[in-house]
Every structure is written in structure tokens, then in C-alpha cells.
């Protein structure tokens, strides 16, 4: 065993060093052949972040592309499919530490169809490494990666000018590419951009300064990562405390649990609860390790207030001065992440801080061409497109602009039917004249000016609409069974079944989201045909062929099995 930490005293000093380390999260981007995975593998290896048995497993791997030498890219290409294709296809997180810092790397792929992965990795990063192939120069991809980094608000950009060995470590090549890159960074408004000449395969200027680039006097890549400032200056100093849940173990305690995303809170501070606008002050700041006098950004605490006001998950506690904007409409940049294109006007679910509300995109202002950064006419927003849009929500969001605060300026859009995360959004500005002051909202924070959509009705029912054609004699038993399972049902009888009225009634009930029941025999044959032909997109289950006297077990179980497919996702909000 090593004697580095042989005694408690030295262990203690070791511990002091370990516990003083801060944390830098960074992301990497590069095109397929820029050697990004190799660079990360090299960084992990040379900084001793790779465990020996993982190295052994790479060495014996079947698809080693370096003929017996260590293929550093295999250290990060995790999944089987990727290993077979030799391409990183998703975001992989890597961890390593030096004597100075702990690092989290989000390793993301570089090819075009995976813009969404880079945005994902960039969303939590303080720094981005952009790989530039010295033999190829600044490519459209370089522009794209730098743009996404700036869009996601990464304050520090470093261009690793890679494959310097292939250009004979020439200074003029490096200087030319550096100029090109700085121009790009300036164009994107990135506050800090530096360039480092490296060779990932040879290890030049990754950890140790290379002898082959005597003309380069700047830091090596690792030196830079170890010294770049990690703390972003907060542009907003007032409190933002989104409430995650209410902790109420008994009648004597009622606390609001959450993480402070901006600012600081002290015992006795006045606070305002949004969206209600009610005021109180902080009675105590509770943690498992004892109450504290104050807590700052990033800390997870529980706040007890001086007086009882109605607060639940999704509300935000803020300082009375410099409150966030409360609005149901704003402009945002969207990164579209779904194979299903954006449908303007369709209802999506927006998740913002701890709040989930219905949202729709009312207008696509323009698309951004990620290669040229040119604004283009709005068309369909397809996977990996980026666009500036107008958004309306059913209830107000409590937000700051993304450029001021990543945590209160960001949101995601979720498709309420497929449950997929379809977009990432960054709030750009409040739509002019659209701020919804608290007085326009009723006591529940509901904006009465936004129309109720069909999707919202489906959501409340917990299922989408459908029609069942059942044996007439069994209709009441079937309705009872469906109703007991929580479905909103209606039975069509009498006039409603008349040829001239049927479709009018059917469309109305269907758009209300109900499960409609009709006796199969009572429905006109012509109506049935028309139903099949002209309402082909509607869900109609015909279970009338099941022979039945009253309501057999078989019939009911068939109906319930069909009905189950109508259910929507579990409700995101279950309340406290």
C-alpha cells in the first residue's frame, strides 16, 4: 500500500485538499473525424482518470482501430451500436479529477442529425471545447457547434486545433485558424474564446506542453480547464426559489422544499409567493443537519414562513424587489428535438422550473440556419431545427430571460400524447404588451383569455375519445364497467341515432373527449359505412360480434382492454 496517506494527519490534509476542489462541467463538440473521442480519451488517460481494468478491456476489444495501440476513442464510445459503427451517437458523461478540480464532461456527437445531443450536453456546461481539424480549418460544423454553445449560454469557449502533427506543427496554420475562430466567437458574442494547438493522438499540449510547438506560450488544454473561472457572475441577485413540494409531517410543521436557483435567503427576509403575490417572511431555514441562518444559490433547503399562505408545487418564492416576469406569452428560441415536426397551435406541455403548464407555439418568427446563422423563412420545424417562436401558456410562467438566468429562463416542451420531450426553449423576451399582471388572473392563477383546447379536455379525462359499438342489450353493463374504470362515458339513444343527426352529435361528443357508446343494432347500416369511410381517423371499436345475452365476462374484458389503449400518461402533477 502507498504511504502517501499513511497517517491521520496527512490523510486529514489530503481530505482538506479533496474537499476544497470545485467543479467544472464542460462539453465537447466536433465533427465525426475531428478526433473528439480520442481527445477525451487522451485527457482521461493522461490525467489518470481512467481505471486500469477499463484500459485492459479497451485493449482486448474486438473493434480496436489502432492495431494493438490504445484506441482512446473506445474509452468514451459506450454503447454496442456505437462501437460497431465507430461513432458516438449519444451524450456520455465522464468524470475525472486533478489535484485542483473535479470535472464532469458531457461528450456529445458532432454529426448533423444530433444537434439535440449537443444542446443537451451544453445545457449544464460552463465551458465548451470545440474541435477544429487543422488540416480542414473552420467547417460549417465548427460554426454550428459554436453557435449552439453560445445559444445555450456557455460563457467559455476553447478551440482545440487538433491534428497539428499532420500539418507539421506549423505556427502559421495555427495562427490563421485562431484568427478565423476568434472572428466566429466575436460574431456569436461569446465573452471568452481561446485557441490551443494540440494533437490528441500524440498527446501534444493536452496535459504537458509540447516540445514540437515552441512558438506556443499559452496553457495546455488541461491547464486551461484547471484555471478558467467556474463561477459565473450572477446577473440577478434577488431570490428565486421554485417550490418542489410541501413538507407537512404533522400539524405543527409546514415547510416548502426546493433548491435556491438564484440569490440568497436569510431568516427574517421578506418574500413574495408567486403567482398569488401574497407576502410573508422567512421564519426558519430547515435542513437535516440543523437550521441555518442563511442559504445561497444551489442549496437545497426547506423554508418555513412566518404566516400561513396558500403555496404549492410550481409556485415560486422571490424577493419583493426585482421579481421575475409573470406572463403567459413570450418569445423564445426553440431547439426542436422530435422526429414529429412542430405543429403551431397544437397543445404541448411546458415544463419550466417546477411548473408544468399547457403551452402552444402561436407563431414561428424565423428559423436559424445553423451553418450560416442566416435567418430563414419559417417553415416546418423539424428535428434539429432552431427557430425563434412566440409561445402562449395556459397559466403564467414566472421567468427571467435566459441570458440573465439559465435556470429560470429555460423550459422544455413535452408532447402530451407521446410523452416525448420535443423541444428545449430559451426565453428571449416578453411579448410586447402581453405581460399578464396578477390582477388579470383569477385566484388560481388561471388566465381566462386563453381558450380551452380539446387536448386539455382529454388530459383532464385522462384518456382520448373513442366510440364503442356494443350489443344493445349489454350497453348499460358496458357503460358501468368503463365508468368504474374512470372513463367519461355517454350513451347514444333515440334521436341522436337518427341518420341526419348522428354525425353532428358524434363530432360534438368526440371533441369533448368522451367515450361514446351505441347499440350496434340501433345504428343505421348506412351510418355505419359512413362512419368507417368519413371518420376513418376516429377511434371506433366494434365489439358487437361477441355473442352475448346480458354482458359476458368476455365482452367486458374485451371492452376494457380496448379502452386501456385510450389512456393518457399519468398526470405530471399529483399534488402534495
Amino acid at each position, binding site marked *: 500500500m502507498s504511504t502517501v496517506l499513511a497517517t491521520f494527519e496527512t490523510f486529514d490534509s489530503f481530505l482538506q485538499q479533496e474537499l476544497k476542489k470545485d467543479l467544472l462541467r464542460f462539453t465537447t463538440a466536433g465533427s465525426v473525424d475531428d478526433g473528439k473521442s480520442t481527445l477525451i480519451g487522451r485527457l482521461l488517460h493522461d490525467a489518470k482518470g481512467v481505471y486500469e481494468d477499463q484500459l485492459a478491456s479497451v485493449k482486448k476489444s*474486438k473493434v480496436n482501430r489502432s492495431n494493438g495501440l490504445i484506441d482512446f476513442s473506445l474509452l*468514451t464510445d459506450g454503447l454496442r451500436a456505437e462501437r460497431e459503427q465507430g461513432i458516438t451517437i449519444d451524450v456520455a458523461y465522464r468524470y475525472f*479529477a486533478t489535484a485542483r478540480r473535479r470535472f464532469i464532461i458531457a461528450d456529445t456527437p458532432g454529426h448533423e442529425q444530433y444537434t439535440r445531443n449537443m444542446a443537451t450536453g451544453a445545457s449544464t456546461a460552463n465551458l465548451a471545447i470545440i474541435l477544429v481539424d487543422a488540416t480542414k480549418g473552420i467547417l460549417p460544423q465548427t460554426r454550428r457547434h459554436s453557435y449552439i454553445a453560445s445559444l445555450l449560454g456557455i460563457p467559455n469557449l476553447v478551440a482545440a486545433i487538433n491534428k497539428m502533427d499532420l500539418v507539421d506543427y506549423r505556427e502559421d496554420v495555427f495562427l490563421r485558424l485562431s484568427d478565423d475562430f476568434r472572428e466566429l466567437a466575436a460574431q456569436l458574442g461569446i465573452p471568452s474564446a481561446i485557441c490551443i494547438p494540440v494533437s490528441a493522438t500524440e498527446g501534444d499540449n493536452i496535459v504537458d506542453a509540447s516540445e514540437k510547438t515552441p512558438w506556443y506560450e499559452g496553457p495546455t488544454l488541461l491547464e486551461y480547464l484547471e484555471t478558467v473561472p467556474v463561477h459565473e457572475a450572477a446577473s440577478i441577485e434577488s431570490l428565486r426559489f421554485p417550490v418542489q413540494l410541501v413538507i407537512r409531517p404533522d400539524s405543527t410543521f409546514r415547510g416548502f422544499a426546493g433548491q435556491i436557483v438564484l440569490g440568497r435567503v436569510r431568516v427574517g427576509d421578506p418574500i413574495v409567493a408567486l403567482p398569488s403575490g401574497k407576502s410573508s417572511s422567512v421564519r426558519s431555514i430547515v435542513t437535516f443537519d440543523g437550521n441555518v441562518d442563511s442559504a445561497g444559490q444551489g442549496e437545497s433547503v426547506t423554508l418555513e414562513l412566518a404566516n400561513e399562505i396558500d403555496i404549492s408545487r410550481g409556485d415560486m418564492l422571490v424577493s419583493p424587489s426585482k421579481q421575475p416576469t409573470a406572463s403567459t406569452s413570450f418569445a423564445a428560441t426553440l431547439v426542436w428535438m422530435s422526429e414529429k415536426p412542430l405543429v403551431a397551435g397544437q397543445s404541448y406541455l411546458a415544463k419550466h422550473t417546477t411548473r408544468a403548464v399547457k403551452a402552444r407555439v402561436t407563431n414561428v418568427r424565423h428559423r436559424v440556419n445553423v451553418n450560416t446563422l442566416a435567418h430563414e423563412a419559417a417553415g416546418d420545424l423539424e428535428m434539429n431545427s432552431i427557430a425563434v417562436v412566440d409561445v402562449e401558456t395556459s397559466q403564467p410562467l414566472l421567468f427571467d430571460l435566459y441570458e440573465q438566468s439559465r435556470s429560470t429562463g429555460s423550459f422544455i416542451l413535452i408532447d402530451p400524447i407521446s410523452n416525448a420531450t420535443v423541444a428545449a426553449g430559451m426565453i428571449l423576451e416578453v411579448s410586447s404588451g402581453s405581460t399578464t399582471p396578477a390582477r388579470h388572473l383569477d385566484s388560481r392563477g388561471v388566465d381566462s383569455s386563453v381558450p380551452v383546447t380539446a387536448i386539455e379536455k382529454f388530459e383532464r379525462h385522462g384518456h382520448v375519445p373513442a366510440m364503442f359499438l356494443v350489443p344493445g342489450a349489454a350497453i348499460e353493463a358496458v357503460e358501468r364497467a368503463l365508468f368504474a374504470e374512470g372513463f367519461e362515458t355517454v350513451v347514444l339513444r333515440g334521436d341522436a341515432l337518427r341518420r341526419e343527426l348522428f354525425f353532428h352529435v358524434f363530432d360534438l361528443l368526440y371533441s369533448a373527449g368522451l367515450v361514446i357508446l351505441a347499440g350496434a343494432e340501433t345504428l343505421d347500416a348506412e351510418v355505419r359505412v359512413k362512419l368507417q369511410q368519413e371518420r376513418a381517423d376516429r377511434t371506433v371499436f366494434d365489439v358487437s360480434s361477441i355473442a352475448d345475452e346480458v354482458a359476458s365476462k368476455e365482452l367486458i374484458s374485451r371492452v376494457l382492454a380496448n379502452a386501456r389503449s385510450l389512456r393518457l400518461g399519468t398526470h405530471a402533477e399529483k399534488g402534495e
Partner: protein
Amino acid sequence: MSQITTEEVESRDRAGATLLESARQTARLSHLRKLEAESIYILREAVAEFSHPVMMYSIGKDSSVMLRLAQKAFHPGKIPFPLLHIDTSYKFPEMIAFRDAYAKEVGAQLIVHRNEEALQAGANPFTLGTQKCCGLLKTKSLLDALAEGGFNAAFGGARRDEEKSRAKERIYSFRDSHGQWDPKNQRPELWNLFNSRIDKSESIRVFPLSNWTELDVWLYILAENIPIVPLYYAKEREVVLRNGSLVVIHDRSELQFGEEPRLVKCRMRSLGCVPCTGAIRSEADTLPKIIEEMISFRRSERENRAIDHDEEGSMELKKREGYF
């Protein structure tokens, strides 16, 4: 053969406690504090958003840390979900004793689930191989337990730094109605905004320790005085060398033909089933020594667990089928 009791370990660590107190104070301001705050945030989000959460409790060091974080997240309330232990029946007896005592101390409800059907049919890693044995006693057992309990969110203590396929895991990991993971169709996860939407019978695995490393876990155990199973501490134990691993022998009936146990000072780096978890030779009988050893060894902790080695990419295969 005598076992170290939790009390003995605690008293030994208490000797160094005073010296460590200042370090513990520092710990409250360190990157550990950031990781802790993030994990608490994740635990609270999942409890707020899912109707039936459960915490996988494997008795190991990561589970112990996750449990402490749960105590912190909901304080002064109780832990608002049960703990679920998937018992393969091949666990170390020290683990079971520790589990029952600790769950009681923390005041959490404990559910223990076994795949009795497979066990009665004689499932074991020797004749079935580790893949099939894990499939029956862990993965199937887990999926059955989750279905029986109607759980739609399950916390797991997995860390992304453990293994390559885990490096790509989301914090909220979507599983289809068969509990399966599709690494090519994961939901993008941005900022700290998690998508909790699922349909009936689908579920989410939630990983609050995603961003922790092995060293973070040990430092936190030290800083927080978290009890761990005595098997982590080195002592002389009866072992045999089997397939390159040191296998601890509790009973001579576990011996295979020709094997002769001997006394070796050793400990476990990670806890699994007796037949598939190797010990390492070690002198580390206190937490500081364990941390020191960890740093000097620089071997990933799963090296001595046979299950990840049976096929390259085997963890990914297991995860696709529903394993944690």
C-alpha cells in the same frame, strides 16, 4: 469464524473522529455539498411527480448514501416511499443483518422480494451461468416486484462513472411496459428539467447519484458518518481463489472440488452475491485507509464482480432487459 460487528468498526472510526471533525466542516462547503444539493433536488422532484415511488436498496455503500440523501430531502418528514431489496438468496449474511437493522433505525418500510419460483427450481450461477442467473434472480425478480407494488418510479444508486453504458444513462431513465431500456431512444434531458410523463404500466428509473464518483461516495460516507456493511472493512477471512477472484467462504459446503480455503486479510470493494463477488487483498480496516487504498489502486470497483465481464457490453444487455 468471527465477524467484525458494526459496533467495533464504529468505535475504531471514532478514534479518528476528532481529527476528522475539521475536515467534516470543510465538507459542508465542498463540491460534495453541490452533489448533495443536486441529489436532494432529484429525489424531491420524483416524489412530487410520481404517485408510487420506491427506492431500490441494495445494502451497498451507494444505497447507504442514497438513503441518507432521502432522509435529508424530506426532513423533518419521514422518507415518503418504501425501500425495496431484491434478495437473490445468495447475499452475504452480514448484508441481510445490516439491512434489517438499518431500515429499522431509519424508520423506513422495507420490502424484500425473491423470485421464489426460480429459487425452488434451483437457480444458481454455477449451472446457469451468471447471465441467466442474474436474469432470473435480479432482473425478473425486480420487474415482478415493481409490478406487484404498482411502482411507477424506482430510485437506483447507479453512478455514471461505474461503467460505460451507465455513462449514457439519463437521470430520469424511461422504461417501457416490460421494464426495458432503449439506449437509442432516450429522452433528451436538458438543464435540470426532467420529463416525468409516462403511460400506464411504463415507469421511470431515477438515479440521484448519477454525477457522483466512487471517491465522492466514500468521502461523503466519511463526512456524514454513514454506517456501512462491515464487509467493506478488511479483516482476515477464509477464502479460495476461483477464476482469478478471491471468494469468501462462509461454509465448507460452498467449496468446490479440490479447493482448500485459507485465511487472507481482505475486504469487498462492492457488494453483490457471494458466488460472484470477489474480495480484494487489503489492509484497509478504517474508512481513511479504504479511501487511501481506493486512490492508490485506481481500479474500477466492478472489476471483481464477475457479472460485468461475461461478455463485452454485458451491462448494456442487462440494462436493456430491465436490470438497474
